[in-house]
């Protein structure tokens, strides 16, 4: 049983991550239900989505129940903090340093090094996969991304994933 809330701005590829996590968990034989934002908000507005792995029927994460909050935009973290459970973990795309509650990664900066700022979502997921208790392993995500039939997209995503994994600071509290 695991519940994740992802948040950010429309256009950052949150729906892509939601779908990817769902597909990989399904391939593992787990039951997954997730909720996404579509429509007008995707034109750069605030976006969040929920992923619930386990025996759930409702696709929405209740307040105070999320194990992880993955935020692709630091300005959106506070809008979604109430979903996080006590001792839940926040992973935030930000240039600031990490704290005991919030792990931060400059995913946009790293993605820009790859020449495509849009890869910030996959970089962040790479980092997420290294966090203790995250429901998917780095290898499962790697396998999932390898299924993309588009050569260039697959290669860029895999590079971004490795970058996120490598960014994991071993000195985290």
């Amino acid at each position, binding site marked *: 049983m695991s519940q994740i809330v992802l948040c950010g*701005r*429309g*256009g950052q590829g949150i729906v892509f991550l*939601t*779908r990817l996590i*769902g597909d990989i968990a*399904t391939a593992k034989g787990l*039951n*997954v*239900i*997730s*909720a*996404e*934002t*579509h*429509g*007008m*908000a*995707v*034109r*750069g*507005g*605030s976006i969040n989505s929920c992923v619930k792995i386990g025996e*759930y*029927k*409702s*696709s*929405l994460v*209740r*307040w105070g129940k999320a194990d992880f909050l993955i935020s692709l935009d630091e*300005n*959106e973290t*506070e*809008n979604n903090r*109430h979903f996080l459970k006590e001792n839940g973990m926040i992973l935030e795309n930000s240039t600031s340093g990490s704290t005991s509650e919030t792990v931060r990664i400059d995913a*946009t900066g790293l993605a*820009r090094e790859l020449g495509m*700022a*849009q890869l910030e979502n996959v970089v962040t997921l790479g980092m997420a996969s290294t966090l203790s208790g995250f429901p998917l392993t780095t290898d499962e995500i790697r396998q999932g991304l390898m299924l993309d039939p588009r050569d260039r997209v697959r290669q860029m995503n895999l590079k971004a994933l490795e970058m996120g994994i490598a960014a994991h600071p071993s000195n985290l509290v």
Partner: protein
Amino acid sequence: MGNEAIARGIIEAGCSVATAYPGTPSSEILESLTRWKKEMGHNIYLEWSINEKVAFEVAYGASLAGARSAVTMKMVGLNVASDPYLSATYLGVRGGMVLIVADDPGPHSSQTEQDSRFFAWLAKAPVLDPSTPAEALQMIRRAYELSEKYEVPVMLRPCLRVCHSRQNVTLNDPVDSTYAGPFKKNWTRWAAIPKFRLALHAELNKKLEKMTQEEPECSLFLEHQGSSDKLAIITSGSVSSHVFDLIREEPQFAMFNVFRINMPFPANKAALQSIVDNHQKTLVIEETYPVIELQIDDRRKLVGRLSGLVPSQGELTPEVVEDVILEAIGEKPRTRPDVQIKARRPSLCAGCPHRSSFFMLRKVFDKGIYPGDIGCYTLGTNMGAVDTCLCMGASIGMASGFTHAQLEESRPPVVATIGDSTFFHAGIPALINAVHNKASFTLVLMDNSVTAMTGGQVTPASEQLADGSEGTPVDIEAMIRACGVKFLEVVDPYNFEELQASFERSYEYSVNKSMGVSVIITRRPCIRVKGVQLSSDRYTVLDNCERCMTCIRDLECPAISFEKESKSVVIDSDTCSGCGFCVSVCPCGSITRKVS
């Protein structure tokens, strides 16, 4: 995704004709069908229709021809399709016909929170209310069985949380397309005059009665067995999934019986009443209107929307549902953190051709009245260029009203804006009406060649059809001229000078000389359309910037922002799409192309 599951259900049920007009949260149903048509080599006929009314009529015609058909839309689309729907339930169908209408409690991406199940009640036709994507898939097959057994169109009403939820589902093999045999002429039914309609109405009433007696979906099933008769919960559809999880996760709720009904109309009223009679209290939780509740005659032991316990507006999120159950058993709502959400507003994309049209509209028609319409370009509100948004196509009708109501001494110019897809959908009759009745205003038809807001579906002007095959593109210019418009110009919205000159000529024609409706088509493809070449040019702000904020306040480009620390205007190269319109907009000449 729920919409993919619904599409899968349509394919599995052997449907041969599916039509739709896009609208959140329903658009992905037909999109998934087009994908699978290709992947599975299926021979289903698919179309993005011009509007929901026509989509319904095409699917209905196919049903009378003997085929299984489906039509999908969002709930406000059913307002447009209500005319054929309410008549079709009297006449009935031949091949099974399923109408899928996606509701949007919240509302997240719509004008209203209307409950399509009420429309089904008004039309006197059955409606199924799925709670999850997996259930929606199964219900489609059942909907076809019911539609053919009772010869009525059957509605499936998924809410947003079904449409846009993803879940692992079990797939079945598609059955062969079924065929009810060739159309049999019978004018007393298919072209019934009022005398025969009375008989058909009586027949429909009998069908509903039989349904409530024979079909298990009209009755309740016990979804969770509790241990007490203190409280029963009756629920349905998407919100029932929140009820189900709450009952399992909160030990204090486990004692209550939870009943679900899959067909909220027509409900078996005796079954509903017996639950109420056999419990001390019964709580009804449904979205968005009290459809089940109103079918319970003795409501003395009932709480829900009619008693004021359940909020009458807004999405029933798990938190709302939890508090409603607590209140029903006389407990206080949970103390929750005071969440102050500072939501970022959506905005037209950087480089969106609509942005330059709106900028010029504000510049040339200063202090005008700007009736707007439905699409991405409703976001022209951010730029002060959209004053009204009523429903599809209303910009043109309302512009007429604004001009006819104005007093001679104060005549602000009226400029309506509409997209190409919305123009086809409901704008054409309004334009003919405006021209014929001598209204004088400017219509900016922002033609980006697709239905952009909902994901870039084709329009009647497209060269391709829904499934990628070749269609017959309809010429928008010829259409506008045929509406009687004498002033028509087509400009590239990226071209600042031409855009300004064209808007000024229109001002002269419609405002200064009151010569009638002038139409300017601002034509450039949506930057999100596949294959559209975007410039790799990037722009920068020079030191002579006077911080007049024209680019930020009036152009409102998401790539341009004011950096507080350095007190300077900056352009984000990641967000910029290279249109270069800001260079012309800047009054100080301070924006320039970067030399790479």
